[in-house]
């Protein structure tokens, strides 16, 4: 695995596929959520319209350098995460830039965008942005726990930190997926997954329905467009990691499409079925349910 210039082209193509897939998939899932609530829901191409609208809006203000860079950090985090993890198993080209680092890189790169965005939101000076960051950090750091322990269990199980090798170890039928070889770790990780998807019951961070609370409060036009772009890439990038670690990875784009969709659907299902947690409730939830499951998973290995 080494760098070749052609990889840049593949990376851009991956990005293009994932972005479009993300835009369509989130719209479909949002529609499904609306139908569950007896509403009609958005049009499937609505995300494109929103995105384009924001990219071309002309009202432009800034609160300072960090504010300006916040969305850049955020989107870099999303794209980087996607490209640092092999997308399609068995293909050197679709492994993108995963030669830069292993699972640990992906695990920590998640925070690159989070931190940058939090800083940008902070400089806007809006108290509700800061409040959102406070809630988001509290929640995400505790949601991260079951996930991190589960990841470690998986690494121990396969005795490697390389994502490619972890996927390789799960080949040979559904029953060799981590889901079945270490169900506790996967269960714990999936709880963590719910916590990081910004859907109910863990969506108090953004609370978009009532008042505009959350880190993006002050971001508009092109800034918001970057954030929206990221909202369609980042979850997919995260799901790719889950898919690779726990669900056998994807050897082709169609399999990729199906697995990503189904995994995303999990959070949507939970989201429409449960009411919202307060932050301290979600922190306790992850510690009481997520962490013990993860620990069982760790000792299971």
């Amino acid at each position, binding site marked *: 695995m080494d760098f070749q210039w052609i990889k840049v082209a593949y990376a851009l193509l991956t990005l293009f596929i994932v972005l479009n897939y993300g835009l369509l998939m989130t719209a479909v899932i949002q529609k499904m959520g609306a139908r569950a609530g007896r509403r009609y829901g958005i049009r499937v191409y609505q995300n494109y319209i929103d995105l384009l609208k924001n990219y071309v809006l002309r009202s432009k203000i800034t*609160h300072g350098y960090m504010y300006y860079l916040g969305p850049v950090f955020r989107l870099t985090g999303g794209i980087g995460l996607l490209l640092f993890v092999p997308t399609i198993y068995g293909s050197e080209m679709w492994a993108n830039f995963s030669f830069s680092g292993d699972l640990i890189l992906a695990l920590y*790169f998640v925070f690159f965008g989070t931190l940058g965005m939090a800083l940008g939101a902070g400089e806007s000076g809006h*108290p509700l942005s800061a*409040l959102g960051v406070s809630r988001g*950090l509290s929640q995400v750091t505790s949601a991260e726990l079951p996930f991190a322990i589960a990841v470690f269990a998986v690494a121990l199980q396969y005795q490697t*930190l390389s994502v490619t090798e972890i996927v390789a170890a799960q080949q040979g039928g559904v029953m060799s997926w981590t889901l079945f070889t270490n169900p506790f770790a996967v269960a714990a990780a999936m709880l963590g997954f719910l916590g990081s998807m910004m859907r109910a019951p863990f969506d108090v961070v953004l609370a978009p329905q009532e008042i505009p609370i959350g880190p993006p409060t002050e971001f508009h036009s092109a800034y918001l467009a970057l954030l929206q772009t990221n909202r369609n890439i980042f979850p997919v990038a995260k799901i790719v990691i889950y898919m690779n670690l726990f669900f056998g990875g994807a050897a082709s784009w169609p399999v990729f499409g199906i697995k990503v969709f189904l995994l995303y659907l999990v959070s949507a299902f939970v989201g429409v079925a449960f009411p919202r947690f307060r932050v301290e409730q979600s922190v306790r939830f992850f510690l009481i349910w997520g962490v013990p499951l993860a620990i069982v998973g760790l000792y299971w290995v």
Partner: protein
Amino acid sequence: MVSAISIIAIGLGAAFLLGLMREGREALAHALTVLALGAMSAVAVGWLWLLGPGGAAVQEITTAGTMPPFAINLRVGLTEAVALVMITLAGLASALHMRAVLLRMGRRAMAVLLIAVMALAGIVMTRDLFNLFVFFELAAISTGGMVLLSDDEDALGAGFKYMIVAQIVSILLLIGIIFAYHATGSLNIDDMGGLAAMGGGAALAVFLVVAALVLETKPFPANGWALDIYQAAHPGFSAILSAGTGTAALIAVDKFAGAGGAALAPVLTGLGLLTFVAANLLGLAQTNDRRLLGYSSVAQTGLILAVIGQREALGESYLLIAGGLLVGHAIAKAGLFWLSGLVKGRDLTDWATLRRSPLLVFAMATFLAMLLGLPPFPGFYAKWALVHGLVASGGGALVALVLIGALIEAGYLLRWFGFTMKREASEAVASTPAELALVLAVALAGWGAGWIWGEVGPYENLLRAPALLLALAFLLLDWLPARVKNVAAIAALIGGFAASFASYDPLQMIFAAIIMPGGAVILLASFYEHGRRVGFYPSAMLMFAGMAMLIVAQSSFGFFAAWEVLTVGSYFLILRGKYSEPHALSYVLFSLGGAFAIMAGFALASGGMANFTMAALAQVPLTLAPWVFILLALGFMTKTAAIGLHIWLPGAHAEAETDVSPMVSGILLKAGLFGLMVLMLQMGSPSLYGVKLTYVLLWIGALTALIGNLIAAFQEDAKRLLAYSSIGQMGYAIFGIALMNHLGWLMALMFVINHYIYKSMLFLSVGGVAKRTGTRLMYKMGGLIALMPLSFIAVLIGIIAMSGVPPLSGFGGRWIFYNAIMESDARAPMIVIFLSGPIAFLYLFRLIHSIFLGQLKDENRRLREAPFWIVLPQMLYTAFLLVFAVVPGLALRRVDGYLSTIFPEHGLNWDGLTIRSDYGYWSPVSVMAVTVGIFASVLLLLVLLNHRAQKVKQFNIVYSAERPFRPETTHFAWNFFAPYRKALGFLLAPLATTFWDGVTGSLHGAADFLRRFYTGDGQHYAYHVLGFVLVLILIVGGGL
């Protein structure tokens, strides 16, 4: 050489001469007194010179032309000569010090002083038991007389009580002498060897004489009479009482100890240690300086009594120990009493007046260091030898008592020093040049004694250590402007590093690099300070010297001495902070406690050997190894502030000065890590009851990381936040070391470098901001990014590096960490360390957000960037972090290679740009390139779309169609992680603080209870003495 008996003759003659003089010639009388005392001192010093360096034989002096036992004989050996010098010099110095009082009281008082000194000299020299009694009587009467010289209204009562008790003691002694004479037919002490075993009331004789002599040493609890004297007498005389009378009484006990036989040893030891511990405990409750010194004197005398009791066990080192303690105590106590004469008020806090005079502070620090047995003074060598000797003879419990007593003593003495340095000072102390010269001369005598003990003892002479001398040289330079000294200090650090560069192994090199060049970079910030900054440079250089000596120490003694030196230096340094008085005290007490554990550990490991190399730790027998390991690890972990031992750190680091915080956090903490590494390098991982001790350390490291990080997230004070974060970070490092594998150590060493850089940088940034805003409370800041952009960049880079987010160097540490734990089986502590990891994000974000982002406050609108000299080192660190992020191989590769010699398995492979472990891979350059590439592209896109973005004013935000009212209510910062606190606040219960508060509380409670014995009633005191004798009879009788 003049016969030593002339000391007595001169004293007696001069006293008679004074009696013949006319009234009104006080000045002449005083001159005569001083002359006589000078002559006595000269004879004593002459004999010390002859017997010590001259190597002359012990001098026997016979009287009346007849041999003993038919006439009295005197003897002067080395011990006696030392005692004589102390007694006569104390007399001389006191006569000078008390000149005004003596002139007022007249020639009779001077005669009494002469008699007192003469009598004490007689007690030291005489070999005749009855003569001893006579000299004791003379000493008692003259003491009673001298007490009356004081202006203190309690002096009369104190003198009277003293006389009552002195008579009881005399009666006991006299009856004892009668029985001794009956049993042996002789009054000569030399004929009484083995007296206890003879018949005819010999046992009773021994008992009575010993009881009387021991009572002269003022044992607990029969010592209220003596304490009243210390409190009420003129300090000049208290100095004699402490330095002279105590010494004489101890010499008398030592002389007679042979007569008591083996049965006496445990009695003396027990009484001595009881007194040592109890008197120190009582010292805790004192607020009157002289009474406190009295208790300290009683305690030290008790310790020496115990040493006399252990004479056989200590063997060859007996003289070194007893002498070291005796001389150290005499010099220090005399000096402190004379100092107390310069201080007007009697409360301990009144000593703050000394602060205006750096020389007097230097003297006080010297005296306290001597009392506490800190290097390079005689007590240090003595304590080391004592602990080793006791351990060698199986006296582990005795060691524990000695160390506990010493720690309590350190508690009240250093609390007092804290008062002196930090409390309100009303006016400068009014001292004449002569008084100042006297005190300084005594302090210098202390340093001289330190040199002598270093030379004659079997250990290295610390005053020959170049690093220490270099640091002490800064004492002499202290009159220079701070900036000149700063240049000198930086030059010294760089020069020291350059000089030893070639001799370091890679492990030492890492630590040396952060100590010396690293220290120099931090010192750049000190250029900001103006004026002379008295005391800063000697303290800082002392700390650096200790660190530099520590990493190259070959012997356990050298290691321990270096440890103490760096502790002392850093204590003075921390104490400089404006509000750091209690925190510095807590720091130094934990450090000294840790140091004692280390000393006990080394003593146990060496089996009492004087010269024990660090490498020999590997050969410690298996039965002892775990205990040695525990003691040493405990000691080292007080420095790294492991959980339970951590409560000193937040205050000490937060309250320290701006440039001191990075030193004590970025550099000093590493001393503990170095100790742990050396320990495990030599001893590996011993097991106790089947539990691997490194496994316990894993737990300690993990819990420390968790609690440190968690508490940090809830701090409002920026420096406290960083301080708690240090606790957490050190937990990680301990965890890494305790993994005992290649990558664990690599991670720990990377932590050593990284933590130095980002913690120094953050402390400087925050310190600079605090200097400008005048507060450390983050919620009072906010929005400073535009005003202090450089500080912001430093904090930004610092927190990215610290949180481990790629692409900066902190990620390397995390990556190695994950690889390291892949090899370990210890999963439970691993889970705890996982819990603590993400919490770092919480406090780091809070740090940068609450200070630099959010809403700018009105009072801060005119602030400027932090001072240039404080920003400069931050920028250097920033540049280094960025370089280190791309090419971590610069440092890592060499260390990795070195670690392969210790842990050959599971190292890293350096494969072009990619670093590979057994489990994963990491390519720092690629990570950086990809990240920068994506970031630049996205930024370009945004700039294209949004290049005309207009900067709006502070309150121009989406606010439900309202305008925010004021920044204070709009800046969301206070109690930032409220939900987190709701969920996990229960983990913050201050268990450790409660525990240690309980410990100190019960000690104070015990002290308050014990002091009820001391009613101040002479009758009670007499009962105490009688009761003491009665109990002694029961104990000895029961034992016989």
